[in-house]
């Protein structure tokens, strides 16, 4: 009996010591939580080498995914990458901490038009990371007609070849814009109408995907898909049959920015990391790899001509057309959630 008790104690002791020593690391580190496929991993190594701070990197799939993770606590991240409307919500719900601009001198390198936007009026919380549009990517070898509007995604001819984004705001925005409504509508009737549209479209849709869309479109599994501009750049590099259009009904102009959550443990490290990513040469290296558009002109100048002159990545105002930036739905977020759940549950 006694022997058994000792062995149990021993086991407990071993477990405890591994847990305790596991926590007490010598080297400073930061926890970074970013979108999947949204950084050149080499940059993380560069940062570790230069600053001696270890980067623990993890990824999420949608803004909502990120929000729930941050809101429910239990995890501590030092740098996260939400989009505009999610930053607005996180500021409102007091989930973010103000950045110390003195620690991020590279903020001055950011082009003025990307600063002091409505989601963070004085850039007290966020430093822009990437920006872009949402559009339609289609395969010219499979579709001969001219594609120019969201309504093309409702064309019976493309049944089983359409990919939609598995993302609440983006997919609702497509239907809202098709109907001629604002993608920031607060009118429940308009949202219900969008729901009906998307349910109507569901039999035509092959799948609702996230990053998997990239493989599916490049390999020719799908003919037409809703994608973010940066991903479009990357896909078009891999398959020259692909073409990106900004629909005539207007689209979403979005910004992903770097922010520091309240629960961050290493704020200095986080600021160093944000500053590092905003350094023009690093931003350029990153953009060259992932295809997304950087808000730093000096960095843009360092890009290859092919990318710099690519209208998908760096469109003129005219090419972008009528754009809207997402706003936080605030009190009617439950309506958005319910409608999205209902769309996904319908057969």
């Amino acid at each position, binding site marked *: *009996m006694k022997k058994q*008790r000792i062995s149990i104690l021993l086991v407990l002791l071993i477990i405890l010591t591994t847990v305790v020593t596991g926590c007490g690391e010598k080297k400073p580190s930061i926890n970074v939580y970013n979108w999947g496929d949204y950084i050149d991993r080499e940059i993380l190594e560069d940062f570790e080498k230069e600053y001696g701070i270890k980067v623990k990197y993890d990824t999420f799939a949608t803004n909502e*995914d990120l929000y729930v993770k941050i809101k429910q606590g239990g995890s501590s991240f030092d740098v996260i990458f939400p989009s505009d409307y999610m930053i607005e919500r996180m500021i409102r719900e007091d989930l973010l901490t103000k950045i110390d601009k003195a620690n991020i001198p590279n903020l001055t390198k950011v082009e003025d038009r990307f600063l002091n936007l409505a989601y963070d009026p004085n850039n007290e919380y966020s430093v822009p990371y990437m920006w872009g549009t949402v559009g339609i990517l289609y395969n010219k070898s499979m579709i001969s007609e001219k594609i120019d509007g969201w309504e093309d995604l409702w064309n019976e001819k493309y049944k089983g070849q359409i990919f939609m984004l598995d993302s609440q705001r983006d997919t609702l925005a497509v239907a809202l814009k098709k109907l001629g409504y604002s993608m920031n509508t607060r009118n429940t009737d308009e949202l219900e109408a969008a729901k009906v549209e998307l349910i109507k479209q569901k039999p035509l849709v*092959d799948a609702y995907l996230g990053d998997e869309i990239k493989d599916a479109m490049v390999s020719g599994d799908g003919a037409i898909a809703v994608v973010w501009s940066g991903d479009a750049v990357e896909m078009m590099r891999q398959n020259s049959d692909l073409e990106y259009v900004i629909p005539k009904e207007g689209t979403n102009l979005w910004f992903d920015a770097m922010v520091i959550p309240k629960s961050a443990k290493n704020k200095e490290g986080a600021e160093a990391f944000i500053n590092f990513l905003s350094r023009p040469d690093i931003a350029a290296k990153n953009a060259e790899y992932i295809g997304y558009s950087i808000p730093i002109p000096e960095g843009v100048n360092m890009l290859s001509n092919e990318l710099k002159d690519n209208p998908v990545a760096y469109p003129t105002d005219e090419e972008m057309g009528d754009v809207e930036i997402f706003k936080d739905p605030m009190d009617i977020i439950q309506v958005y959630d319910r409608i999205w759940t209902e769309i996904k549950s319908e*057969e």
Partner: protein
Amino acid sequence: MNMKKTAYPYVIWMIIFTVVPLLLVMYYAFTTGDGLELSSFEFSLDSFKRFFTPIYMKVLLRSIQLAFISTIACLVLGYPIAYIISKEKPRKRNTMILMFVIPMWMNFLLRTYAWLTLLGKNGLINYIVTKLGFQPLNIIYNDTAVLLGMVYNFLPFMVLPIFSTLTKMDKGLIEASEDLGANKLTTFMKVVFPLSLPGVITGITMVFIPAVSTFVISNLLGGNKTNLIGNLVEQQFRYTGDWHFGSSMSIILMVLILITMGLTSKFDKEKDGGGRGLW
């Protein structure tokens, strides 16, 4: 309670990791409230009311339906496999079972992702099909794909328990049956099959439960299009953050599973006097 002292660590373990989480899920299911303050929640049955509306009932029915079909498919495929393997000589038998188990050493997610490349429109299966001159098959992002994924992933859970009851069976009974003039079919129907029922029932439970609650398979192979109850629960916890609604759906799912287990174990007891199942 005549519990040995050595059992205490396990009891503590179970309280922390089973009882407390279950109670929390129960608490969330029967309350509403915003935020994280557990004490600020108010009692409410709203999430249950919301669930018992046509739209969610359809999802529940779909999940039961798909889980049921995949369980039947696993049984139909799994029983003969288990039977054939159990008839082999021990050495060969062990190798065959090992072949069956080896894929399970690989991560479940990885194996399901692998199916994506097999089933895709330009995937391996369709490559062969089109090379043979047939029309490409539409076997990705639909119920067929989800069912395939379920059967593939859960088949070992059907085969292993049946196999173990078959091998442990007293061979003398089969010989006796043959000595008394029964042919092979009668022996199988009257002796072997009834004696293997505990394994069959364990197999059914072990396939049905993960199949009815899966969300990964329907996400990956169903293209997020065929929502199952598992997906709904996942959505509430991961994207919507409505843990109350998510919890009440989990409770409903648990009740459903309890009922199925109750039914199957009742059947089990009637057949062989009880307590012979593998769990």
